[in-house]
């Protein structure tokens, strides 16, 4: 019974949603939206579940003096401090979201503007450094695939930069040099085919860069658009088609009750 009821609910909800997709007439047309509102309401109540879990977990760590109890204390101070600032603002101004003039804001919004937002910004800015370190690893041209990845990245970056003619030319020549060097390295490793291909491509890029040096900036943009518009888009669409079909298959499995791993059997 414990398994059957969720399966029946899943089946009914799934079938209703699929049917309403094809029937615009009321009450079917807005049923999906209505069910989403129900999900939001359930989500709102579930937030209480989350807060309860969070407070219990950290109180327990704090009272037992477990390892890292100080972080639990900081978390609890954060939770109750934010809550208190909201209640106080509400009592004073009639709403927790009170906005005063200029930089003066109600307590709750002060916490939001001057603590939460800067913390979010700090975390987000870390991404720049992580991208740099990940790119360094990903673009080390140890294999032919990694070299292709790095080449595509360099071409796209060159196309995105609002640089002048000389930097564009220097960038293209450095890229050509990189390909030639990489080719020579592969010849030393006795990978003749890969080495010759890389040297030929490198020389071709170098010659083209010198011959068409006046068009380097436009060329960089066109190359970038080609890379983004064809090889990148083709790969992306391949992944998306697979995703959509996989998603439909998963949905059919869920609706028919074949996929049950999300339901406890105990």
């Amino acid at each position: 019974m414990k398994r059957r009821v969720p399966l029946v609910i899943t089946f009914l909800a799934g079938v209703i949603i699929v049917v309403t997709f094809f029937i615009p007439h009321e009450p079917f047309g807005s049923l999906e939206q209505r069910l989403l509102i129900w999900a939001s309401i359930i989500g709102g109540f579930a937030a209480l579940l989350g807060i309860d879990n969070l407070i219990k977990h950290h109180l327990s760590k704090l009272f037992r003096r477990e390892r890292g109890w100080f972080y639990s204390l900081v978390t609890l101070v954060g939770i109750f401090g934010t809550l208190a600032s909201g209640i106080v603002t509400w009592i004073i101004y009639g709403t927790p979201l009170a906005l005063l003039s200029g930089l003066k804001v109600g307590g709750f919004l002060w916490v939001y503007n001057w603590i939460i937002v800067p913390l979010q910004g700090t975390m987000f800015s870390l991404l720049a450094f992580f991208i740099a370190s990940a790119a360094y690893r990903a673009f080390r041209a140890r294999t032919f695939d990694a070299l292709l990845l790095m080449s595509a990245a360099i071409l796209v970056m060159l196309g995105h930069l609002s640089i002048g003619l000389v930097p564009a030319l220097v960038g293209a020549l450095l890229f050509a040099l990189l390909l030639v060097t990489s080719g020579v390295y592969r010849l030393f490793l006795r990978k003749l085919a890969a080495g010759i291909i890389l040297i030929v491509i490198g020389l071709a890029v170098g010659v083209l860069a010198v011959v068409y040096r006046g068009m380097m900036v436009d060329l960089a943009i066109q190359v970038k658009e080609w890379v983004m518009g064809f090889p990148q888009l083709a790969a992306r669409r391949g992944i998306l088609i697979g995703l959509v079909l996989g998603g439909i298959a998963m949905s059919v499995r869920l609706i028919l009750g074949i996929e049950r791993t999300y339901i406890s059997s105990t």
Partner: protein
Amino acid sequence: MIFLIFLALSQMPDANGVAEAEMPVPPRPVDSLKVNDTPNDAGKSLDLAWQLSADTVRIAKYVVLRAESPQGPFTEIVQLMIPTDYYTDQDTLLENKKDYYYRVDVVDTAGLVASSEITGPVRPMAQWFNTARIPILVVTVFYSILVILYIELAKRDTGKMFVRRIAGLDAIDEAVGRSTEMGKPILFTFGIGYLTDIATIAALSILRRIAKRSAEYETRLIVPNYDPVVMAAAQETVKQGFVEAGRPDLYNDSDITFLTSDQFGYAAGVDGIITREKPGTIFLQGIFYAESLILAETGHNIGAIQIAGTVMPEQLPFFVAACDYTLLGEELFAASAYIDRDPQLLGSLKSEDMVKIVTVAIIALVSLVGTVGFILASYVHGWEENIIVKLYQIAVNLFTSA
């Protein structure tokens, strides 16, 4: 003298002439105003279309007016400040099965107004079937039949279904074992998805397998959560895995906790846990946005073996760069079938492959038809509007109409 008088008169400004020259001429109105019920909708919507005024350059605005009788009164419903030849009236005051009349006025830069003919009556109606979605219905029915068919076939021919190796899923046991050998915990994160996301449900099946293995190896499993509903589902799933392994006593509720529903707060929280607990293995499975690389790079920095999987194409390169194994998109959906080897689930995977073959064949065929039609239309005299181009257009319309 008479000549001078006539000369003087001829030099005087002609009152009638001035009036003619300065007489403001109203602009020409819009033409062929047509109003129709918006197709394939729930009603309360009408589509208007007209031909722009011949004096477009001096028109300041187009004003759409509506009335419930041809005599009026007409109420202004919108002012369109740029030359526009269509408008969809979705006013909440519109009632289904009720007659409405429309008029479009043009106002020129001098403020002169010209009205179109009154068009009506028209009734907004709700439709019982969205005909634009027939191709989707056909594909859905075809695909669903194929899924059921292959599931039945799989039930009969158990063991004959070949599924290609998915390195990321094969590595689960190895990764759990490695963590056990190192005496370190395992960390699993769903990212910032909700239980309404299919990817999160797919990730739950991977979590169950991991929970079972970690219970067998007596390794701690930490699952910090972004959404309380996902947390509750994760607790149930892990509990289930521990029961299946025969070790329900090892289950610890406080290892599967709620962190926060703030994206970067969650990233900071998980990063903190990774830095403090130093898990031997990290699983990143589900929905990820900008926090993907923040989590994956932190995991990489502590030397954890990382297995990622997401349905977000934008995040896949980050995971490929920072993780040891990555489940690319649909591989995440295939996880439960791959892990459990249940014939019914494997059957649905096979049907997915079949539909993929059909889809690729259709794309190739339509591309070929389009290319050939375009070449013929461009270079062969008399083939400007050939049947191949029409076929291509029909195919494109069929798949883009909804």
